[in-house]
Structure formats: structure tokens, C-alpha cells
């Protein structure tokens, strides 16, 4: 196996469908060789002048493609831009690459992206594969159901169909908490949503913020239920060993807290001011966050 990624040549990302329809058919050059350890260093990123960031296209309000404008927008996108501003001096120097829960880790490991801001929970398992920034958001797993559903809490899922995506923490959590639930797995949440609408599944489970985004698409028929039954510290994924970038990102996060930028982004996308417990989790190190995540799973 190869520990790290590769010295990346220019990597193509789909910034928008428009761009994809135009001239971005240049090949992502195959890497020269495997396992050259360090990956793309901060210096290389600076020389290249763009930060390649993996974001989700199907996870409003964190990252979603607006079909009207063909632009990806969301909380994670704004965080990525803010970090680019701190690291490269210009918030426009970001190349957004669509990722899914399934492929964000390999894409990071093989250097196709420098970082991802993709609703990823910091877990001990993932920390074995990649590094994370300090915690930049705290979410909790919850349930999205139809308005007329009688599911009140996660325990009610026993014997029911619940949907989530492959390779996500909610999958593991729900299997652990409700072993009798039937878990349907897709590549992305869009299929989960269609399955909930047409009755194939009884609930979708994932982090509350994503569920809230889905609810807003169809507020007449959908509701959140079951409260937050996990502690999900979000981190920005960074390739293992890329400590320079990790350090820069963490500094950027700190700056964003200090100059109020983070609060603005929070208000813009989550429509509420910073929560009271903000100081308890914001900026806690990845190791600490992962440990807390681990402890709660043991206690439940």
C-alpha cells in the first residue's frame, strides 16, 4: 500500500456544470509514482495558486448545487473560501471538487483534492487514514420522516427502513443503536430523499443540519424528529502528514472565530447565531474530538 498521496499535477474539478460543458476536458495527469510520502505541500499549493477543496453537491445547507445559477454554495463552501483567503490571500483561489461520503477519503489520499469540507465527522477510524483540522462545527444525528410518521425517536426504527449513505458515520451509528432497523444505503442522499418520498424507506438518518436542508426543500411533507442523539464534531479533512497545511487551516479557523467571520457564515446558512456551547467545541483538536466521539458511542 501507499501511505500518502502524490505530488499532484493540475487536477480537474467540476466547478460548475457550465465549466464542465466547456473546455475542462484536460486530463488529470496520472501521477508519476506512488507513495512519495508528503503529498502536496503547502508551498506547492501556494505556488499553484489554488486550493483544491472537496465539497458536497447534495448536502444543503453545507454544500449544494443551485440548478438555476449552476453554482455550488453553502456553509462548507464559505468556510473553504475563508480558509483560502487566509492561506492564499484570495477567497476566489479555490477549486471546488464534488465529493461524496464514499470517495472523499481516497480523493484526498491520492491528491486529487488538498482538503475537503464535506460534513465529515472526526472519528478515530478516519484519523487512522487522514488528518483533520480542529473542530469547525458540531452536529448531531437525527431523523427526517414524513409529517404523518409515528416515529418519535430512534428506538422506533426497529423493524423499519432507514436510509443513509455508504461509508458514513450515521450508517455505523444507526446499525449500532438500532440493530433491528433495515438500513438502505445509497451513494448520495438524493436517492434517500426520493425513497422517503415514495415510501420505500420510513426515515432518513444523518446529521441534523443536512436533514434540515432536505426538510426545507419540502417543508409541507417532512419533519425532523428524535432530537440529536449523537455528538458529531465536523472537521476539515487533510491528507495525513500534511502538517503545514493543517497548521495553516487551524490558524485560519482561529482567525475566523476572532474576526467574526465564522459567526457571519453561521448566521447566513444556519439562520441562527452561534449556539451557547460554541466555545466548548469550536477549535478543539481532532484527537480530542475523536476521543469524545468515541466515548459517547461507548456510553450508549
Amino acid at each position, binding site marked *: *500500500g*501507499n501511505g500518502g498521496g*502524490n505530488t499532484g499535477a493540475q*487536477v*480537474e*474539478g*467540476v466547478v460548475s*456544470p*457550465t465549466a*464542465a*460543458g466547456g473546455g*475542462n*476536458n*484536460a*486530463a*488529470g495527469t*496520472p*501521477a508519476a*509514482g*506512488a*507513495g512519495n510520502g508528503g503529498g502536496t505541500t503547502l508551498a506547492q499549493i501556494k505556488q499553484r495558486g489554488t486550493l483544491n477543496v472537496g465539497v458536497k*453537491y*447534495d448536502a444543503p445547507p453545507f454544500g449544494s*448545487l443551485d*440548478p438555476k445559477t*449552476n453554482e455550488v454554495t453553502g456553509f462548507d463552501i464559505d468556510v473553504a473560501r475563508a480558509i483560502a483567503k487566509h492561506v492564499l490571500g484570495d477567497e476566489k483561489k479555490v477549486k471546488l471538487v*464534488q465529493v*461524496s461520503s*464514499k*470517495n472523499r477519503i*481516497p*480523493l484526498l*489520499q*491520492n*491528491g*486529487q483534492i488538498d482538503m475537503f469540507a464535506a460534513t465529515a465527522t472526526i472519528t478515530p477510524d478516519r484519523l487512522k487514514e487522514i488528518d483533520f483540522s480542529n473542530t469547525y462545527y458540531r452536529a448531531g444525528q437525527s431523523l427526517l420522516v414524513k409529517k404523518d410518521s409515528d416515529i418519535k425517536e430512534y428506538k422506533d426504527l426497529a423493524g423499519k427502513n432507514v436510509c443513509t449513505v455508504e461509508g458514513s458515520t450515521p450508517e455505523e451509528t444507526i446499525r449500532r443503536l438500532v440493530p433491528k432497523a433495515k438500513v438502505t444505503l445509497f*451513494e448520495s442522499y*438524493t436517492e434517500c*430523499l*426520493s425513497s422517503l*418520498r415514495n415510501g420505500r424507506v420510513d426515515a432518513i438518518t444523518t446529521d441534523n443540519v443536512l436533514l434540515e436542508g432536505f426538510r426545507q*426543500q*419540502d417543508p409541507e411533507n417532512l419533519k425532523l424528529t428524535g432530537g440529536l442523539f449523537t455528538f458529531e464534531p465536523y472537521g476539515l479533512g487533510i491528507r495525513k502528514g500534511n502538517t503545514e497545511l493543517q497548521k495553516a487551516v487551524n490558524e485560519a479557523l482561529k482567525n475566523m472565530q476572532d474576526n467574526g467571520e465564522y459567526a457571519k457564515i453561521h448566521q447566513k446558512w444556519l439562520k441562527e447565531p452561534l449556539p451557547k456551547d460554541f466555545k466548548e467545541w469550536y477549535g478543539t483538536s481532532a484527537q480530542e474530538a475523536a476521543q469524545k466521539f468515541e466515548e459517547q458511542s461507548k456510553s450508549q
Partner: protein
Amino acid sequence: MRWSVLVDNFDLLLQGLLITIQVSALGLLLALAIGVVVAVLRVTPNRLARLVGASYVEFVRNVPLLVLIFFIYTGLPDVGIRFSELVTGVLGLGIYTGAFVAEVLRSGIQGIPRGQLEAALASGLSYLQAMRLVILPQAIRNTIPPLGNQTINLIKNSSLVSTISLLDILGTANLISSRTFAYAPVLLGAAALYLSLTIPAAFMVNGLERRMRAAYR
């Protein structure tokens, strides 16, 4: 059904159509290149070359395209080779269709009388020159109809690139329908767009087939 969704998102779907055309066209070029090389390998006097060609064809023809695409997309990065989504799609379609193109060309080549090759070799042309200048031009003429069918298959198969997040016709349709919940009309619209590519191609294939048959009378 809410057909208006199709009108509202017409430009998006059109962009998807362009991506499908782009991926298909590049994939076809690659498939033809691979097909020619592999077909020549398979009819060459060299036994090893024949074995390599046959292995390629048998392996690729018997594995699902989706497995091939996922392998290029998520498996190759494991060993340090990575391509963009577009290149992944083109490679997957090209490598897969190339095996079928090779078979079509091979039977086309084997349909050319042996005397053609002998005449070319006897006049001092090298084996590759004889193939390129004498055999392949004749073989390709005979294989245009089956190659047309492979092209139609390739266009349809290009829809699999939507699974690696390329916004081709189907990818766009999935995106639109997940936003609008108008699954049936959007997918029917996508089907119509695919038909707008494949049906003309099928007509051309039929026309060519008829002309070919007439030419041999």
C-alpha cells in the same frame, strides 16, 4: 405530470447532453484506437501478441463496465494513478468498447482474402504497412454497420458516468429530479435526449447496412 420542469431546466439538460456527447465522442475515439491495435494483435503471426490481444478482449468483454469505471475511479488511485471524472469516463468507455471494436475489426480483417496480405507483403511492404494501407481500409469499410451498433451501445453506456458525478444527461436528470421531485418527467426527458442521439445513429447504421448489402450484389 409536471412537464414544466423540463422547460425550466432546459439549459441544464442541454449542458448534460453536451457532456454526454463529449464523453461519447472521446470514448469512441479511444475505443477505435484500442480496437485497431488489439485487432491487429489478434491477427498477427506472433503468438504472444495474439495471446495478449485475446486476453484483453476476453477479460474486458466479460466484466461489467460499471466495475471497470469504479476500478479506474477509486481502485487505481489506491496504486497511485488518478484521473479526473471526465478522463475516467472516457477511459472506461474506451477500454470497454475497444474490446468489442477489436472483435468487429478482427472478423472484418479475417473476411479480407488472404491474397491481399500476401500481395502487399510480396511487394515489400512491412506487416504493419500492409495492415494499415491494404487490409484495414478494406476491413473498416465492411465493419461500418457493426461499428455503428457499437457506437450506439457506447452512447447508452456513457450514462454510467453519472455514477462518478459527471453531469451528463442522466447525471443532470438526477440532479434536477432530486431538486424538483419530478422524477418521471425528468427521466422521460432524459430518455428523449438519449433517443435524439441513438435513433439517428441507428438510422444511419440501417442505411449503411442496406447500401453495403446493395454494393455486394
